[in-house]
């Protein structure tokens, strides 16, 4: 990380930390929470889909794991209200380690087969969520004990938690990018067979980013569950969540540090605005589909890389 980069990061997060103290209406903070949440999800996805070049279509499953973990542990009692936040690192680590065998299977394949495997994992997770009723509550869902935060500032701890996770995702991205692991990943992304041929630890670095990515995604899912208070399987493990992460990453620019953040900053408010104006959630689908197709065809590199090239 260059000094300039560190200053940029500090300014960005500094400003975001101060925002809740300044804005009045509750809906603004609510919108910010979801924007920051998706920025974190997109940044986490970027590790696998951007830096490693493996487009995972199953990340929503990890989001769901984190959500259900928090829901199961904190069904009845959240202690001082911060207990769920304190368990997040454990949840993240557990998920990161648990996905290693899955990642190993999935990443033995090429990119298109990898996408099929990850989509299947998503379907498996969804099926389990609907059917393991004793664990997940099935279609009835599960509730989390409400947080004992004061009403006027209720959203703030959740906002800061999401912000912290976004910072974590970005810091880890920088750390990886600026290390030999990052160099190896860039080689893998560029020409995987040649990377094998010069002795790069291809499988190792792929597993590393997959685990980190899954862990962060799960932690974000945990905060989300705590925030919304009641989770249903079709929302906790929702292909649209994956599509959202992927789309934001593509829009802003894969394998860039700020691309996912930019993508989220554009799309989440747009999505909320459309939902508010036009109501029906089916339009989400059409909207997503349309934006996706436009990006693929017109702006395949995403905004930031296209701007850089134009310089």
């Amino acid at each position, binding site marked *: 990380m260059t000094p300039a980069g560190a200053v940029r990061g500090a300014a960005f997060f500094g400003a975001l930390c101060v925002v809740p103290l300044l804005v009045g209406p509750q809906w603004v903070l609510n919108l910010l929470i979801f924007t920051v949440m998706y920025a974190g999800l997109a940044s986490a996805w970027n590790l696998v889909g951007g830096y490693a*070049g493996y*487009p995972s*279509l199953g990340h929503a499953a990890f989001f769901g794991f984190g959500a259900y973990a928090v829901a199961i542990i904190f069904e009845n009692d959240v202690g001082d209200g911060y207990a769920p936040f304190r368990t997040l690192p454990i949840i993240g680590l557990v998920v990161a380690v648990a996905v290693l065998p899955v990642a190993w*299977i999935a990443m*033995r*394949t*090429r*990119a*298109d*087969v990898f*996408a*099929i*495997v990850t*989509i*299947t994992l998503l*379907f*498996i997770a969804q*099926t389990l969520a609907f*059917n393991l009723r004793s664990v997940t509550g099935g279609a009835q869902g599960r509730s989390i004990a409400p947080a004992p935060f004061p009403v006027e500032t209720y959203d703030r701890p959740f906002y800061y938690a999401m912000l912290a996770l976004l910072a974590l995702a970005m810091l880890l991205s920088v750390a990886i990018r600026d290390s030999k692991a990052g160099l190896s990943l860039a080689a893998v992304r560029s020409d995987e*067979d040649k990377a*094998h*041929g010069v002795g790069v630890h291809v499988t190792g670095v792929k597993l590393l980013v997959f685990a980190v990515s899954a862990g962060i995604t799960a932690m974000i899912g945990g905060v989300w569950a705590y925030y919304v208070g009641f989770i249903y399987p079709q929302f906790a493990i929702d*292909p649209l969540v994956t*599509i959202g992460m*992927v789309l934001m990453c*593509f829009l802003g620019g894969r394998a860039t540090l700020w691309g996912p953040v930019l993508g989220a900053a554009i799309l989440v408010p747009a999505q909320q605005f459309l939902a508010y104006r036009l109501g*029906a959630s*089916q*339009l*989400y*689908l*059409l*909207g*997503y*589909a*349309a934006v*996706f*197709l436009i990006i*693929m*065809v017109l702006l*395949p590199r995403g905004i930031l890389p296209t701007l850089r090239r134009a310089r």
Partner: protein
Amino acid sequence: MQLAAQAIILGVLTGGVYALMASGQTLIFGVMKVVNLAQGAFVVLSAYLTFSLFTGFGVDPFLAILITTPAMFGLGVAVHWLVLRPLKHEDVGQLSLLVTFAVALGVEGVLALAYETTYRSVQPGYENRSWTVAGLQISEVRLYAFGLSAVMLAALYLILERTRLGMAIRATVQNPTSARLLGVSSERVAALGFGLGAATAAAAGSVYGLLYPFNPGSHYDLISRLLTIVVLGGMGSVGGAVVAAMIMGVGSSIVAALASPIWSDFTFFVVLLAVLLIRPRGLFGARARGAL
């Protein structure tokens, strides 16, 4: 014993319909090396079209095929032209997946707007009739659907083996570069191949509505099964897809009968992961290409 036999019959009949859907998907992969994640959505779209034709105009679902198949063929060609063809060559592999997923979502969105999310089914009156043969029940609709699938697959076979388009498709599947050198327009083959794939989804979709209740979100279930079938059969092999569809049809039916329908979904997932682990090219797929 009888339970097993019943399950097998059901599995065979269902497998036939899946074979039709899967044949189109594997064909698209063979021609373009694109995994068409919208195949399930095409089936559902066709089911809705059939539903409208039936409830609006009284057209029998089996006749509706004459309308939906060419319509979806055209849609397939259009989709290819609009969103797949513009992808730059290096990006095609990765992006095509996301693009076809986006198409699936778009179709789901349009259907949800047009028809809302209530489950529909096509009920012309004969959907519950069945024959009893040797103590075993054979649903009439399923048998007709199987027969239709067999006929369509035979038609597909004839197209692939006896027409110029079919020859061009097979050449492109086997060796795209040589085919190009021999004057086969790979773009046109890709477009027509995609159209053909969508057409098979159309035919299957018309009968799908008779067999199962559906709503716009049903494409997810379908695509997860189709992916297993296509991977098991070997991506790009139409014959393989047919064989795999029968295997999975019978297998999942037996699991549903002996255990429960929930676990029958699981058989698809388990088989998919197992194939990818043990023999990634499936039963009849081409060997994984070497590095050079």
